[in-house]
């Protein structure tokens, strides 16, 4: 066995270094190729095709590969008149959900991440609490959404309890199938996407900085505002990016929790796909993509993303 090892050693020594480096380089390309292939075939080409098809004509029967800007004109049809067009109203409705969801998930996610990062002292307990937060995600999202029905419905648990306590006489109608229900479901599904990146940022903070702030006489609130919060910015931005993408592109949550009554951009695209109006759907998708990218660009200005990742 020793001889074998020695002969291999001799082989290794015999092969000149530069060719070895070149082989390593070639190997790296080979190893990254499958990943690049998947993203090329299932992300880049589809997006390019969506861009092309959004410029095609269509009729009731087929899509016609002839250039037109009509699909985009249809998307913004009537937007220049005084009252808002459907597209702008849909986007405003979706943006309202983005703003409300962010306004709730951000402080909530920050508080929970802060609790886990700074107040929990044992790593095992921290892992346990994280696991506790992920277990509900083992249930299908759709199922978790409809399970709000027995809680929020007209004769649901919340209304029954409130009536039992004598706080209300008539059941509250707006609990289910309303803006409230949609935001509730978004907070329920997306807060975890806020918790994890913020926790990641907080865990990296050098604890000596906080002690230094305290030694210099900063109060708890001052330390939080002037030391912890600036250092948590990258995590907050990444969490916000997740929430923006998830809410902007959503069509399931708004559909189920809004009782199929509330419009959303994702839903418009889905309906157009169902009616085989592919160029129209593609144009809407391109507008949505542009809107999301603009919002993300705004968020990334907050941080130096390269340094974080």
């Amino acid at each position, binding site marked *: 066995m020793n001889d074998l090892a020695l002969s291999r050693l001799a082989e290794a020594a015999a092969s000149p270094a530069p060719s070895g480096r070149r082989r390593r380089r070639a190997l790296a390309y080979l190893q990254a190729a499958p*990943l690049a292939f998947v*993203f090329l075939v299932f992300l880049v080409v589809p*997006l390019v095709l969506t861009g092309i*098809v959004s410029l095609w004509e269509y009729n009731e029967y087929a899509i016609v590969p002839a250039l037109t800007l009509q699909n985009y004109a249809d998307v913004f049809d009537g937007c220049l008149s005084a009252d808002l067009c459907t597209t702008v109203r849909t986007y405003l409705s979706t943006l309202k959900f983005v703003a409300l969801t962010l306004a709730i998930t951000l402080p909530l996610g920050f508080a929970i991440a802060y609790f886990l990062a700074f*107040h929990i002292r044992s790593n095992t307990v921290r892992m346990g609490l994280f696991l506790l937060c992920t277990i509900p995600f083992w249930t299908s999202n759709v*199922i978790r959404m409809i399970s709000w029905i027995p809680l929020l419905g007209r004769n649901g648990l919340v209304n029954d309890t409130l009536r039992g306590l004598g706080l209300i006489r008539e059941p509250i109608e707006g609990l289910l199938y309303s803006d409230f229900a949609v935001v509730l479901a978004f907070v329920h599904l997306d*807060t975890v996407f806020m918790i994890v990146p913020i926790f990641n940022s907080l865990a990296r903070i050098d604890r000596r900085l906080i002690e230094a702030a305290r030694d210099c006489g900063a109060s708890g609130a001052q330390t939080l505002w002037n030391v912890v919060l600036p250092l948590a910015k990258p995590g907050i931005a990444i969490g916000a990016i997740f929430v923006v993408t998830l809410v902007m592109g959503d069509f399931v949550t708004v559909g*189920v929790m809004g009782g199929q009554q509330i419009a959303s951009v994702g839903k418009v695209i889905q309906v157009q796909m169902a009616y085989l109006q592919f160029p129209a759907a593609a144009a809407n998708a391109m507008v949505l993509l542009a809107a999301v990218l603009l919002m*993300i660009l705004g968020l990334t200005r907050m941080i130096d993303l390269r340094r974080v990742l």
Partner: protein
Amino acid sequence: MDRPRGRAFYLLACVFALYVLFLYGPTLTILALSFQGPSGGLTFPMNGVSTHWFAKLWEGVGVVDIWAALRRSLALGLVVMALTVTIAFYAGLAFRKGFRGAGLVFALAVSSLIVPSIVVSLGIGLEFRLLDDGVKALATATGWGFLQDHGTLMGLYSSALGAHLTWTLPFGLLIMFAVFNRFDPAYEEAARDLGATGAQTLRHVVVPILAPALVGVALFGFTLSFDELARTSQAIGGRNTLPLELQGLTTTVTTPEIYALGTTTTAFSALAIGTALGLTLWLQKRRARRALAGLRP
């Protein structure tokens, strides 16, 4: 640093507890209501306790073959899992060595996460429709027999698989980055100094050390795929996965059967995760035991 717990601790602990309660509310509700008595409805109160709705579920839900959908989702989840682990692992190795275009590939991975799912889904759907059109045009142009009764290329293991990978691979890659950051290259150098080839080093040194992390990636891949809905929606042929069938059922099924279904799928996820966690613990124990055995003369 360990000072007595202040008011902030108890306040935040309350917030955390309320959040957990909020998270578990719906899950516990369906768990309870799935054992609703035969005469019970979709809401409380419980009319007795029974496994009636599980029995009904076993017989099938309406016209939809829910068990076939479950099998499809499980099978697809396993394929996605295997591919995610393999592709992300090798990509992690490549990124560690560095290669030209690494920045671009990484940017692609990040974009894959932040492009809205409905847009990715629509794009893949369009791509496969155009491919089908191309194949049909080719069939009429050439008259080749094997192309004549071409249906569609869209399906579980083509378009849907790709759609799932665009969602699981970025997460897998990010985990691999974190793992390789903490990996000490001294182990590999030692193996190489002892005469191991590249493949041997990988097989006997790198993979065993990274095994728990790889199990983690596998777990992530499976659960993300098993519950994926938005990216699959426009990128699947006629045969739906379980989440898609579930979405259809929400509007048609008005009995606690749907809760029984929810409990069953949760049990499947729990089983998968339990197995993976058990496997990780077992791997770590075995490694510790072997390390001890190696110390003995």
